[in-house]
């Protein structure tokens, strides 16, 4: 159980590293959104599940953390979509392969 917790938190951190690099390296707003939307959700969820595995806690507390995960699963893609839509409507310029 402990081992699982350590693994999950470390994996979550690695995924968050991937998100960060994606956020910094990707060329335009739309592609950055891909990195942020996916990596953010998964890394947070993984670290939270890792906390459940790692720390001895009561069942109710574990369910509360599962509730947080649930809300992140609903909220994060929605926020991603809202920002994507806003950027698109406001006219963020997409990156094209031949533009460089």
């Amino acid at each position: 159980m402990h081992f699982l917790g350590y693994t999950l938190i470390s994996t979550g951190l690695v995924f968050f590293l991937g998100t960060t690099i994606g956020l910094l390296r990707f060329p335009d707003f739309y592609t950055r959104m891909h990195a942020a939307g996916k990596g953010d959700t998964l890394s947070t969820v993984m670290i939270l599940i890792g906390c459940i595995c790692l720390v001895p806690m009561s069942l109710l507390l574990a369910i509360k953390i599962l509730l947080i995960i649930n809300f992140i699963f609903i909220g994060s893609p929605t926020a991603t979509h809202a920002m994507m839509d806003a950027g698109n409507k406001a006219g963020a310029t997409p990156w094209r392969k031949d533009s460089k």
Partner: protein
Amino acid sequence: MNTFITTAGVALIGLMLLVLIRAIKGPTVIDRLVAINVIGTKSIVLLLFAGILFGQLEMFVDIALGYGLLNYIVSIAASRYYQHRKSLEPEHSHGGSPVS
């Protein structure tokens, strides 16, 4: 375990610093918004870490739950701003010529 959590937390804050680069660089407001959204989600994780280190998880879980519920309101409000007013001009961040 506490050492591991502390290390993980420090790594998380370090990665948040990297994300901050995106918030500083922009170039548009929506890019900053993406970065801030990621940082907000990671605050939930850091709150839980602080709770584990203090040994009082049940108190910090409530704050994290509140964050999980409220975190995406800002993104949605800001996106709604750009969905209604279609103006997204890249602005210069560091005291350069202000956008008229």
